[in-house]
């Protein structure tokens, strides 16, 4: 019992030390990535205050209007302001991607840890099903399901969430397998704690660092998937502003040497690069800290 009561104190000390070490090791690329994410989040939250025009407001009677003082980046095929739509696109793309990533993690992590804790036939059945789904490329899984249920924002979030959950399931399961053999998990079982307690209070906190890094990568992947689907015309439907759909709508301009289609595509790329920089640094730190012990 003495050891148990001392544990939180040392834990707290170590975590404050850990944060200091992590901040000291932050590389320029990590700061750059963090700044990008911060900027995007700000734009997403205050979209309606920043954007000069509304999301679906027609501001010009000229389709594909030129870059002028009023319409900073020109207008799209219906005469809507491209700059405003880019800003609203940040809100829609990031919001929908976050929601889908959340679902991915809630489903994947809880199933993964549960499979690891229960083991036996439950583990086998769930793992087999996940293996089979993963034998299909993820984009194909999503496309097959979309052909059945049709495309809407709600369906997209659920489908991308569930399709991504397979990867998270595998990761969560394999990491928790190392934790479930620990004495404290056995101890909790002996105490008669419920499955929910063991999954969320004993195992989850111990695999959290791995999951945080995976969350970043999954988020990137989801952003790219949603943009790809919207680009194919199967994702977020007009008139909602979405970067992938905006590339699709203005794609013909590229043959006249106009860079407008590249802007939303670049917006996606910069966000994904920013997140990847931070994840890369986080993984580096996580592995570096393990060496310290």
């Amino acid at each position, binding site marked *: 019992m003495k050891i148990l009561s001392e544990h939180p104190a040392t834990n707290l000390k170590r975590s404050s030390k850990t944060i200091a070490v992590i901040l000291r090791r932050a590389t320029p690329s990590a700061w750059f990535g963090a700044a990008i994410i911060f900027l995007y989040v700000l734009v997403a939250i205050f979209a309606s205050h920043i954007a000069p025009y509304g999301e679906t407001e027609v501001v010009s009677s000229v389709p594909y209007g030129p870059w002028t003082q009023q319409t900073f980046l020109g207008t799209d095929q219906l005469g809507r302001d491209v700059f405003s739509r880019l800003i609203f696109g940040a809100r829609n793309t990031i919001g929908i991607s976050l929601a889908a990533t959340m679902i991915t993690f809630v489903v994947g992590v809880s199933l993964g840890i549960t499979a690891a804790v229960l083991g036996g036939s439950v583990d086998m059945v769930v793992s087999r099903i996940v293996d089979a789904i993963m034998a299909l*490329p993820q984009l194909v899984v999503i496309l097959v399901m979309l*052909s059945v249920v*049709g495309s809407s924002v709600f369906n997209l979030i659920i489908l991308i969430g569930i399709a991504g959950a397979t990867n998270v399931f595998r990761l969560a399961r394999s990491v928790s397998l190392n934790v479930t053999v620990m004495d404290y998990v056995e101890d909790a079982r002996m105490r008669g704690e419920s499955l929910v307690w063991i999954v969320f209070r004993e195992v989850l906190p111990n695999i959290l660092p791995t999951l945080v890094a995976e969350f970043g990568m999954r988020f990137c992947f989801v952003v790219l998937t949603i943009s790809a689907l919207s680009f194919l015309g199967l994702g977020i439907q007009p008139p909602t502003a979405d970067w992938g759909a905006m590339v699709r709508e203005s794609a013909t301009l590229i*043959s006249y040497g106009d860079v407008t*289609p590249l802007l939303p*595509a670049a917006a996606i790329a910069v966000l994904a690069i920013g997140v990847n920089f931070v994840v890369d640094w986080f993984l580096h730190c996580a592995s570096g800290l393990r060496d310290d012990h």
Partner: protein
Amino acid sequence: MHAILTTIFERLAMAVLTLLIVSVLIFSSVALLPGDFAKAVLGQSATPATVIAFEQQIGLDRPATERYFDWLAGAVRGDFGNSFASRPGAERRVVDIIGPRLRNTLTLAGLTAAIAIPLAISLGLLAALWRNSWYDRIINAATLTTISVPEFFVAYVLILLLAVKFPVFRSLSTVRPNMGMVETVENLALPVLTLTLVIIAHMMRMTRAAIIGVLGSPYVEMAKLKGVSPLKIVLRHALPNALAPIASVVAFNLAYLIVGAVIIEVVFVYPGIGQALVDAVRTRDVPVVQACALLFALTYIFLNLIADLIAIGTNPRLMHPR
């Protein structure tokens, strides 16, 4: 020899089993069809009579297991039935829709693979040879960037540069029978270049990691002490032992080629199977979607099987299991 055959047979059986489970998953997506599906396909003006006729036509009045085995038996013989777009008198068979397109996609993927794989492996070997140099760092940054950038961004940048600003290649990749060699190259250059850029970084990075992993082993140290040149160490001593992870990442990227081509084909208006899949999803033509998905799964599983077999073949410990 007997042991190897058993292992190969085991893997083969596993692959077939996985394919069977996948086929059940793909098929059951139809069983999940919501009730108003016929209406969604036929349009709002569908009368109850046409809805019933349509349901009979796609066989929804028969038990699911019977339909599954019919479908599977047909698929094995290369017959995927009729597309939803076919009407009495104007049949449209799924095979006729995806057959020619499959050939186009395989051409595109084959060309890309022939360029990207040797290039990626040799660049990866160089990165391992010159690790921690500026070359290595550039490759690291390039990898991180290319996995973050959407495929269509790469494609449009290339179109802007190589088809509009400097008109070397064409931005539309049309395919006609009996195209000359020069025309084929002109038409396919941009999609092949885009796909190469998209998949090369990952393979390069993994090749480097696999080689560096082996370079830490004592026998490489031994070779170094004997005075073997660094290039020879990498090629003769490290590469053979790193072939298994390299093969698996190459298989992964080849599978991606077939699938990732979905977006590239749409950008370049290339008549491949990816475009067929997208069109079918848009019109909710489920038989075509199922056929495409099954083909993708088959490719994916087959490539992984090959990588598995290469891993076994290059590892003496797996060749002669105790």
